[in-house]
Structures are given as structure tokens and as C-alpha cells.
């Protein structure tokens, strides 16, 4: 455990170094959030009855999404790991007395956490001062807030284990390009990064909510402003735990299998 903690620590400290990049990212995120919210407002003005969430809940959703982008953006995948697999440096990692799966897990969590910590506060603080229905609201209740934090962390873990699945699969395909493209666009769409899940037609939505992708950002961001009822919240969190276990098990199994038959690409 100690060695993974130090991997975590190392990556976390490294992630905190990129402050200028974070600043640039924050500016982009403000613009993105602003565009999204203005778009939702236009739809709301046209037909308020067809709107599936309250307007301020939608705005909160968008700002939280921007603030915790580093948690859930699957395209922010670690290129070092792909490079290591492609150019053969993975051999060094395999020599170490650590499980590469757990090591990758620790370092991915650390990178995302560091990134999010740098970016989330400026976004959240400014968004809190933007007038109602454009800015972010206070959480629905203290209980909702606690559940939100729990679900946020679970969502982070699900996202990271999902990325690990992509890394492990790269052992088999060698070139990460194709896998990466397919997975990232699937995740973007099904997780509610393009538009929040409640905006999809009802039948489709109830199916999408069962998929592992809905256990990434969808659950946490909707719990925050209570756009799910108590039963739905319970179900969403249980699903998150379920998918976390399943994806981790699948990843570990595949990883063990890959390690046995691994071919190191010459360096």
C-alpha cells in the first residue's frame, strides 16, 4: 500500500506544477460553460414546459461539469502510459515489484485530483457570484452535498478504472489510436458530457442510466441540485459501486492475462 501511496504523492505533486496550463484551461472552461448555459436559456425561453430539469439545476450542472472536468474527461488520458506500452519502456515497470494495474490506478487518480484541485475553485467561486439561473446554486441540502461528494469520488474512480481498461487493452492492439477514439467518443456521448442525460427521450434515458457511463459524471452532478429523487439517488450510487467493482475486476483480470503473454516492443 505504501508504495502506491508514494506513487500517488509523486504524481499529485507533479500535477500541481502546471499552474499556467490550469489558468488557460480555466478561461476556456468559463467560455464553454457560458456558451452552454446561454444555449439552454434559449431553449428554455422558447418552450419552458418541455424542459426536463429546473433552469438553475441545469446551470449548476454545467458549472460543476466545467469545474470537475479533470475528473471526468476521458480524453485527458495519460499519454505516458501509451508511450510506455508502444515503445517498450513498460519492461522496466514490469520488473518492479508492484502491480502495474494498482500503480496506474494510483497515478491516474493523483493526476486527475491535482488537476481538478487547481481548476475547480476559481470556476466554482466565480460561478457562485453569477446571478441566479446563470450561476451555480447552493446544494439542495447538506445531505445532498455529502451524497454529491461521495458520488463524485465514486465517479472519479469509475472513470479512472475505465481509462485503465483502455490502457490494458492497448497491450493487445499495440496502437492506442483506434481504441482511444472509439472509447472517448462513446463516453462523451453516453455520460452526459454533450448534453445532460435528462434531455434525452425518456426510454433512451432510462436505458442510458444503467450503463457504466452514467456512473461517471451524471450521478454526482444531478444529485447536487436534487434533480433525482431519493430512490433514484440510492439506485445511482449503488450502480456506481457495482460498475466500479465490475470494471476493476475486468481490468485486473485482463491485466493479469496480458502480463502473461506480453510482448515487449523493442525500444
Amino acid at each position, binding site marked *: 500500500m505504501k508504495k502506491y501511496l508514494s506513487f500517488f504523492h509523486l504524481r499529485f505533486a507533479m500535477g500541481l506544477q502546471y499552474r499556467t496550463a490550469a489558468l488557460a484551461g480555466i478561461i476556456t472552461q468559463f467560455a464553454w460553460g457560458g456558451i452552454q448555459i446561454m444555449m439552454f436559456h434559449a431553449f428554455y425561453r422558447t418552450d419552458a414546459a418541455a424542459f426536463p430539469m429546473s433552469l438553475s439545476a441545469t446551470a449548476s450542472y454545467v458549472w460543476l461539469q466545467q469545474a470537475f472536468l479533470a475528473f471526468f474527461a476521458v480524453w485527458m488520458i495519460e499519454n505516458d502510459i501509451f508511450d510506455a506500452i508502444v515503445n517498450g519502456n513498460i519492461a522496466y515497470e514490469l520488473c518492479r515489484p508492484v502491480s502495474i494495474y494498482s500503480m496506474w490506478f494510483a497515478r491516474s487518480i493523483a493526476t486527475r485530483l491535482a488537476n481538478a484541485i487547481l481548476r475547480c475553485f476559481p470556476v466554482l467561486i466565480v460561478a457562485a457570484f453569477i446571478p441566479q439561473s446563470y450561476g451555480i446554486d447552493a446544494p439542495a441540502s447538506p445531505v445532498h452535498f455529502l451524497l454529491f461528494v461521495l458520488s463524485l469520488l465514486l465517479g472519479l474512480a469509475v472513470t479512472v478504472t475505465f481509462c485503465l481498461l483502455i490502457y490494458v487493452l492497448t497491450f493487445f492492439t499495440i496502437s492506442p489510436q483506434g481504441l482511444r*477514439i472509439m472509447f472517448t467518443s462513446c463516453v462523451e456521448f453516453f455520460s452526459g458530457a454533450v448534453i445532460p442525460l435528462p434531455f434525452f427521450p425518456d426510454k433512451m434515458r432510462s436505458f442510458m442510466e444503467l450503463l457504466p457511463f452514467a456512473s461517471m459524471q451524471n450521478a454526482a452532478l444531478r444529485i447536487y441540485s436534487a434533480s433525482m429523487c431519493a430512490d433514484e439517488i440510492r439506485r445511482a450510487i449503488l450502480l456506481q459501486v457495482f460498475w466500479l467493482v465490475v470494471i476493476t475486476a475486468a481490468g485486473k483480470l485482463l491485466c493479469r492475462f496480458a502480463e502473461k503473454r506480453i510482448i515487449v516492443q523493442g525500444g
Partner: protein
Amino acid sequence: MKTIRLYLHYVSINVRCIMQYKTSFLLSAIGQFLVSFNVFLGVFFMFQRFSKVEGFTYSEVLLCFSVVLLEFALAEMIARGFDTFSGMVKSGEFDRVLVRPQNEILQVLGSKFELTRIGRILQAVVMFAYGIVKSNVVWSVSKVCTLLFMLIGGTVVFTALFFIYAALCFFTLDGLEFMNVFTDGARELGKYPLSIYGKKMLLFTTFVIPYALIQYYPLLYILGRQTSIVYMVLPLAACWFFIPALLLWKYGVRCYQSSGS
């Protein structure tokens, strides 16, 4: 004439270079397609729920979105060398460009020709065809001309933004990521007719960065909501934006100090 031939030569070198890695090219093109396909799906499902947005129907929005996407993809394909210019400045590659007896803009343009954007272009063309069939626009010569002007004007405006992005690298030695707000952000904004974002946004995109001139106003003409000829030629007027971009670039070249590497 000679410049054009030289540029085409650059393009052919780039294309042959990309074609050496066919799988990689194919996958990147598919990736480009999927990324914008997601954006399209977002619009599609919004209109499953809402029939209109501020008086624009689905097919009208699609028409507008596809034109912006096409303009953006074209500009990106042509001016990709400017988009990745920070690397050229940082590595000192630009020094080599300056000592050659050729125009520096041509050389930077020729340094990269991003054929993978064909994925996005394909997407835009399909969407556009779909939009046309659905929107029952009665096409006339003047409307086709308007469309052509939109493509020209839009590509010029986006190219100008890439120029500005590159010119700023002379002063910062590094790419300024926030410039994405104006390029990718404009594409994002352009999904819907700009008037839906309110008066202030429309004013900004009319007079400061002329997105509305290449999107909203000519669209009104194509949809037959405005008949004045002014709306038809506005996209060409948007080309004024290229002048400050070019001046900034020239100024940047004059101030250029090699990074020394």
C-alpha cells in the same frame, strides 16, 4: 502563379507524407468525424424534445451548423501550420523559414496540410445535404451565391483567427491556450443561429469578431426571412477581419527574436 504552384507542391508533399501512414490517417479522420458527430447528436436530441429554438426549426439549425462546421474544417485544413505554429517558434524552426528566399506566410501555410480534417468536412457535407432536403428552402442563383460567400467569408475569418493565434506566439513563445475560446468556441457557438444567445452576443459577433456576418445574417437571406441584397454580401464584408490579423502577423515577424534553440 508561381506561388500557387509552389503551394500546391507543398500540399502534395504533405498529402504523400500522410499517406505513408494510411491506418493512422484513417483512424484520425474517423476520430474527427466522431467528435463532431457527438456535437451533432447533441443538437439532434435537443430537438427531439424541443421543436424550435427562438423561431428556428431543426433543419434550419442544421443548415447553419453544417456551414459553420465546413468553414471551420476548411480553415483548419488549410491553416493548420498556423495552429501549430508555437512549436515552430519554440524549436527555432522559424529561423530557417526566415532565411529562405520565399514569403514566410506561404512557407508556414505549406508546413502542414491537415488532410485528416476530411472527416469533419464529410460530416458537414452530409449534414448540409440533410438540412437542405428537410428545410424546403427554394434555391435560386442568389442563394447559392450567398452560400458560396458564406464559405469564403467563414474560411477567411477562421483562418484570420489562426493567424492571430500564431502571431501572438512571437510575443509569448508559447501557444496561448485561451485562444481556443475564439476558434473552437466559435464553432461551438455557431451550432445555433447567433441570435438565440441574445442581443449582446449578436452585437459582439457583428462588430468585434464578425462571426454573425458569416453565419446569422446570410442564413436569414437563405431562409427567405430577409430579402435585402446587403445580407447576401455581408459574409464577404467579414473578410475585413483578415487585415488586422495580417498586420499583427507582420508586426510579430518584425519583433521576432529567435528562441535560440
